[in-house]
């Protein structure tokens, strides 16, 4: 599907500058759409004034036409009424255009801001703002952010119309004018009070209805279970009971809600009665004409429109401010791993601290870690800079030889070079190897990977080749290491895009082959172009896991940290995946957590975690032979 042009774009720099304060955010939005707001006001004002003119025109048709039996006058004023209809129609359409544009501008920009804030906050967001609130911000609040802008044109028109009508009324009759101008606002504020009282009662019913909707959605979500195990009748009984509760509270509410409707008849009615009563006396006394009496009657009905708009404006302003505060709360969340201001070097446009993934001299990746400034082609930061091709140090400050995994200078503690070290658990991973982590508690092993790849919040003193990574810009860490969690997300869109962007299909197919996902591809109606459903729902657990593995491989990061990458596939498939994975990742660092002998046997080294500490390392064969605890974990299935 072709993507249409997007009119409400905001530059990235602008998005960064969006204030993390509700009211200031609204002002920020308003500044960006002042033209549309002004356009709306220019159309909305004459529009409502024209509507206000209708009663006057009808009054004139009576005064100057019907009552004096003046054909010319009747024709003229009927034409004016019809003409007003045309004018109102044109102005209403223009006003509507600006109102929708206003709504779209504010809503879409607010959503861009919210989305930007969500992505900037990253995983920290889920801890700091409740998930439900975030969802509200991006779904319900979407519409609310635009509401006050939408109503702005009508509101300005309402103010203008009120002034115009007031002028006409006061010029016709000071008494009646005052009655209308003072009584109108009084009427509306008393109506607003009734509405508010009703609103509170409605909340109660909404809660009941929410529980009912939740019950229905919940059942549908668990329908396979329900149909498999039975209990439909039992469930229907519960549903009917809750449905009856909602109905009952709806019926209770009906009286109050009807009261509101009745009040909307009574209060304006009293107003009409007063105006017509006073007007009739004035007309009898000859102070106003019959047509003016009719016009006054028309104004009482008309005036409720601008007054109602005013009330609506206040209500929508409140709703918009609440929504705006919620978005501001997202913007205020600081990410787990903020880009430290000193580390990336934007001036010289070069990577920080001496790490890059490629050998800039020969322009190819090496073992996983190297340290050179690709822009200036020279060593940076005083850290290791080896020439992998000739296997010798470049420059004079080299401290380690990454190719041979050994320290060169005396700056690093022996052993740290060429290893990823997690001091919390004492886990050491040899760079360039295929390592498996085994733990009786799988979460422990997963946490080691989260620390090694710095997806866990906080500082944990992890070092890569002896270099502490806590202070690296997070982008630098991410570009080298990928942590794939136990339940990684899959996103909707074409499979091709989900795997990787900008890679030839050959590479994608290779990665799918390594993940043994050829049959997944075969089963998809349009192959790589197949549109995956939201969160990969249409795929089975095993299919999803293999797609995720292929996706991880395609990142081509030197360090892959995979949590249980084959837990959902059968033994046949797992055996194939491990063989292919090891081959594809030869010379690069791959760490998996697992307890499957098929994977462990293939690993260069196995690290055993007990109570969260790395206690033993060795090959699977040795550990099985020598280590009872290890044996129990990996062969547990047989023990029962």
């Amino acid at each position, binding site marked *: 599907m072709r993507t249409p042009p997007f009119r409400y774009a905001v530059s990235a720099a602008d998005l960064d500058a969006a204030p993390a304060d509700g009211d200031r955010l609204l002002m920020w939005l308003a500044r960006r759409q002042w033209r549309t707001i002004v356009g709306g006001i220019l159309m909305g004002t004459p529009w409502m004034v024209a509507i206000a003119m209708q009663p006057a025109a009808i009054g004139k048709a*009576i005064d100057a036409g019907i*009552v004096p039996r003046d054909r010319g006058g009747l024709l003229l004023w009927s034409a004016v009424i019809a003409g007003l209809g045309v004018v109102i129609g044109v102005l209403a359409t223009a006003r509507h255009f600006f109102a929708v544009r206003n709504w779209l501008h504010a809503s879409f920009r607010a959503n861009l801001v919210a989305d930007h804030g969500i992505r900037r906050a990253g995983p920290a967001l889920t801890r700091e703002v409740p998930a439900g609130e975030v969802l509200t911000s991006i779904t319900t609040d979407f519409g609310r952010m635009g509401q006050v802008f939408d109503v702005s044109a009508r509101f300005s028109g309402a103010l203008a119309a009120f002034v115009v009508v007031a002028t006409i009324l006061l010029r016709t009759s000071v008494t009646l004018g005052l009655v209308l101008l003072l009584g109108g606002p009084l009427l509306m504020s008393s109506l607003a009070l009734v509405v508010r009282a009703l609103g509170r009662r409605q909340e109660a019913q909404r809660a009941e209805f929410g529980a009912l909707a939740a019950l229905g959605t919940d*059942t549908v979500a668990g329908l396979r279970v329900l149909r498999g195990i039975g209990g439909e009748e*039992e*469930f*229907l009984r519960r549903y009917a009971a809750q449905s009856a509760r909602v109905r009952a509270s709806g019926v209770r509410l009906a009286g109050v809600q009807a009261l509101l*409707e009745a009040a909307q008849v009574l209060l304006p009615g009293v107003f009409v009665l007063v105006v017509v009563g006073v007007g009739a006396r004035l007309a009898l006394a000859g102070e106003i004409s019959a047509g003016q*009496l009719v016009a006054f009657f028309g104004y009482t009905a008309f005036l409720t429109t601008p007054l109602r708009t005013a009330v609506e404006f206040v209500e929508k302003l409140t709703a918009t401010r609440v929504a705006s505060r919620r978005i501001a709360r997202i913007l205020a969340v600081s990410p787990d791993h903020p880009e430290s201001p000193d580390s990336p070097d934007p001036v010289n446009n070069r990577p920080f601290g001496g790490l890059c993934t490629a050998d800039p001299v020969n322009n190819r990746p090496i073992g996983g870690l190297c340290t050179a400034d690709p822009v200036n082609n020279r060593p940076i930061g005083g850290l290791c800079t080896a020439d992998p091709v000739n296997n010798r140090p470049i420059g004079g400050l080299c401290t380690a030889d990454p190719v041979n995994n050994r320290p060169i200078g005396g700056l690093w503690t022996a052993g740290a070079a060429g290893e990823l070290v997690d001091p919390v658990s004492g886990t050491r991973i040899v760079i360039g190897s295929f390592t498996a982590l085994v733990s009786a508690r799988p979460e422990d092993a997963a946490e080691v990977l989260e620390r090694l790849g710095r997806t866990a919040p906080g500082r944990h003193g992890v070092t890569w080749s002896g270099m502490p990574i806590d202070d690296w810009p997070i982008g630098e860490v991410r570009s080298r290491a990928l942590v794939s969690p136990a339940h990684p997300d899959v996103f909707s869109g074409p499979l091709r895009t989900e795997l990787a962007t900008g890679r030839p299909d050959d590479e994608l197919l290779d990665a799918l082959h390594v993940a043994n996902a050829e049959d997944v591809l075969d089963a998809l109606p349009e192959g790589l172009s197949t549109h995956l459903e939201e969160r990969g729902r249409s795929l089975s657990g095993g299919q999803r896991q293999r797609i995720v593995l292929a996706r991880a491989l395609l990142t081509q990061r030197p360090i892959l940290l995979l949590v249980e990458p084959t*837990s959902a596939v059968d033994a046949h498939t797992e055996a194939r995946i491990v063989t292919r994975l090891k081959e594809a990742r030869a010379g690069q660092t791959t760490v998996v957590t697992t307890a499957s002998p*098929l994977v462990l046997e293939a690993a260069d080294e196995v690290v055993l975690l007990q109570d969260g500490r790395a206690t033993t390392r060795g090959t699977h064969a040795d550990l099985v032979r020598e280590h009872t605890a290890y044996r129990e974990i990996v062969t547990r299935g047989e023990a029962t």
Partner: protein
Amino acid sequence: MKAPAALTEDHTRRQLPVASLATVRGHTAALIRHHRRPLAGVLGWHALAALTALAAPWVIGQLVEEVTHARRPDRVTHLLVLLGVALLVQTVLTWLARRAAFVLAETVFARVREEFVASAVRLPLSLLERAGTGDLVARTTGDVEALAFVVRTGLPQLLVAGTTIVAILVTALWTAPAAVLAFVVAPVILAVPLRVYLRRALPGYRWERATYAALAGVAAETGHGLGTLDALGRMPARGAAYREALARAEAAEHWTLRIRMRFFPWCDVAFGALVAATALWAGWLSFEGVIGVGAAVAVTLYAQQLIDPIGEVVGWLDEIQVAATGYARLLGVGEVPPDREPSGLLPAGDDLEVADVSYAYRAGHDVLHSVSLALRPGERLAIVGPSGAGKTTLGRLLAGIDAPSRGRVTCGGVPLVDLDLPTLRGEVALVTQEHHVFVGTVADNLRLPRPSAGDAELYAALSAVDADGWVRALSEGLATRVGSGAHPLSEAQAQQLALARLVLADPHTLVLDEATSLLDPRAARHLERSLAAVVAGRTVVAIAHRLHTAHDADRVCVMADGRIEELGTHAELIAAGGSYAALWRSWHGASPAAGSRRLPSGPRHTE
């Protein structure tokens, strides 16, 4: 105005039928018939309220007569008192009418939603297992909401507007029948633009809603997948995807805006013309002496009073269309035919047999080819094989969820799909990872298969799966509310509840699908014990991912390409030296500690 291509696309992946327009009409008519008495009451009250509302224009007309001709102050006072009384009566009638309308709307909507949920929970097993519940979830939320809006908010307002229009017309006819002729101006002007608008509005708004649903989907995915996005470095790309979704929503918004901009002016023109034509025509009639001045004024005001209710009705027309299509989708759920017709025969034994069975999801693409297999009561059979070998399909046939395309799957001589569901559930159950915790109490969750079970029975089932401890420790025990939004349960606890339900359902045969299961060797030990308690004394078919499951089974069935390749005990298959033996050696080769089970290390398994 050329319609964008996106407009004609089907925006939802549809697996369930949609009812025809005739069915919708039929059901609506049935609803009206069923509620005809309250409906008549509502209409009656509204008609009376609307009639009293017309006192005002009539009084104004009379006042104009008085002011211009008679000039009787007493008569003016009388008229004003009359206006006051009419106002009070109208207020009371409005309250009665509105209240009745709200009650009716609640009643109608309650009936519609209960009927829908009733048909949803009766959807055939085979359809749910194959198609999933995505489409149904969409209908339960989106369509029910659209319908609720029209029934609960729209219905009362439409009744008011409708009766008001009728009352105005009747009164105007009564006041000055000849003058009412001018009213036809409005429908004449509106007819064509309204038809064009409605024809375009429905697909337009459907498209618009689909783009917003997609937008919300993208946003929800982002919110849910922040960790993954961060790890993959895809935050910027995600931002682009979001902007793209916004751009689609924008395109839809602009399209519907254009549709409205072509229709709205006609409304105001029609309303202006209505009043102008009435003033002109009624005035002319009064000049000719056909009607009085008061009547001419009143009819002109009646014309003006028609504007609001007509606008109200026109404004609801597109919503009604939306609700009607939503209603069609809700009714469609009830049109799914049952997937089994119980023959009434009851199984003569517990033995399950697959005889020469083939199965195809799509005609001509068999995923099972002439498979035959006889289960021995009480045995544990493991089915192993690579992805796509047909293991899960065979499992579904064995559980009686799907009927084979050819051949028979029988229990005690009766085809499984000939059994009614309650009987089938007592024979064989399919256990997958799906362990949905329903909103409700722990007891509610357990009683689903056996509503009559007492607390003691529930605790017995819980104790069998080693879960009575934590349930007793809950603040309110069995009465503790669990499920979405209530007391959270861990995956293992949820799984245990599912297993306890199985104990209560008590089928003699279980089909365990590990393919989607958490029942793997690293799950907590007590979960394994729970499962062991459930399977004890039953026939078990395990679609195995882990070889230890196969090793522990009485027989192993190796599948490949929709056929049974090997079948026998673990020892027999090892001795046979086929594909199972090769895999086993690879899995087990370096595990000599398994004692008596030790096997000589074979060559490394490759492909």
